[in-house]
């Protein structure tokens, strides 16, 4: 894979991928990482390596004996019927990657879109799932029509965006399929949809947004 054509171009940093592999991220942020991984072979390789590190660390732990009857108890349970596991959501018309289908299904038309600005709307994942939300956090799917501008806003915590379709630009550059855009607290920006198909992006907010100027945006 040549660097010039490697996609995506914007990745999560390795410390965050280690957190994901070690199991230290909240479910909210994990949805973003899993969505990026669906679209990024390079970060999948990094997570696989970080999981191999986890395996080696597990291997190196001093064993703590189980109860003497533990093995017999487990052997007796092996033929118990397995509880039903959630079947992965089959893809439908929307073409969303698997981690998103698990929360939103795959028909964009039936989702409860809320307009934020002309050509900009969003669907919160919040009420659609059973995530034990930390109240300050939010995850939503945002759609930007080509040329549409999201209201300028600041951040009181990190904002993480993963592009699921199309692309957007802000002062820091262009972001396309699979790219991760991470904005720190204190930065302000006003993303605009790139020409072409409408941009779909998944947005995680660690803490509420700050409206700037006349744009009173409580949260996106």
């Amino acid at each position, binding site marked *: 894979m040549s660097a010039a054509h490697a*996609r995506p171009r914007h990745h999560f*940093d*390795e*410390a*965050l991928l*280690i*957190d994901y592999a*070690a*199991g*230290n991220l909240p*479910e909210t942020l*994990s*949805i973003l*990482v*899993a*969505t990026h991984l*669906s*679209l*990024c*072979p*390079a970060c*999948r*390789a*990094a997570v*696989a*390596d*970080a*999981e*191999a*590190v*986890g*395996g*080696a*660390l*597990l*291997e*190196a*732990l*001093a*064993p*703590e*004996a*189980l109860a003497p009857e*533990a*093995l017999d*108890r*487990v*052997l007796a*349970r*092996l033929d118990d019927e*397995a509880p039903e596991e959630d079947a992965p959501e089959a*893809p439908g018309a929307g073409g*969303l*990657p*698997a*981690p998103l289908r698990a929360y939103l299904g795959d028909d964009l038309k039936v989702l409860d879109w809320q307009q934020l600005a002309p050509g900009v709307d969003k669907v919160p994942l919040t009420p659609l799932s059973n*995530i*034990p939300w930390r109240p300050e956090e939010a995850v939503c799917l945002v759609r930007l029509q080509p040329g549409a501008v999201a209201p300028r806003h600041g951040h009181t915590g990190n904002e993480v965006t993963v592009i699921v379709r199309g692309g957007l630009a802000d002062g820091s550059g262009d972001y396309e*399929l*699979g790219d991760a855009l991470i904005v720190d607290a204190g930065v302000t920006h006003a993303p605009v949809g790139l020409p072409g198909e409408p941009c779909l992006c998944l947005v995680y907010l660690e803490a509420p947004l700050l409206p700037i100027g006349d744009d009173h945006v409580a949260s996106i």
Partner: protein
Amino acid sequence: MSAASRKSDDPPDPARLSRLVVAVGENRDRAAFAELFGHFAPRIKTYLLKQGAEAGQAEEMAQEAMIMVWRRAESFDPAKSAASTWIFTIARNKRIDALRRERRPDYDPADPTLPPALVPAAPAAADRAAELTQQAERLAEAIRALPEEQAELVRMAYFEDKAHGQIASETELPLGTVKSRLRLALARLRKALNAGGREDA
């Protein structure tokens, strides 16, 4: 059951562990499972205790994780990961489910919506299993050789349910220092993983 009496502090042999998981997956081999149990269940229990589980809960969860090993063994691919890596992910997911009470979003490598250009080519399976075994050995050695300041952060990340931001605030190290130490540690360990051939990303 004689296979179960193998002492859990014997030096692990990654190739054997891998064959045992395959035997469980393909033949529902109970002796192979018992040997895996003898090796991994006490280590999973230690892992869960470190992560803050109560003793009784760690005992119960370690048993449940091993039942997951039995149920999922068919999906284990020795060309894709070492047995210890695969079992680590089961123990980790059990912990997220039972201790964090959250779901674990993950990507689906067989997701039909993935753009074909982004699906990585499968590694050549024939050499891959042997290579993974050597990797596991090199990795264990590299972990023992990590500088203490890096090893400490790696332990906090993997055993204390602490994301790197939290590690920074607890150790009072600058966030950039925590990130760079974790990055350096992973770079060293990846070098050990990939020394056999694979190109570094």
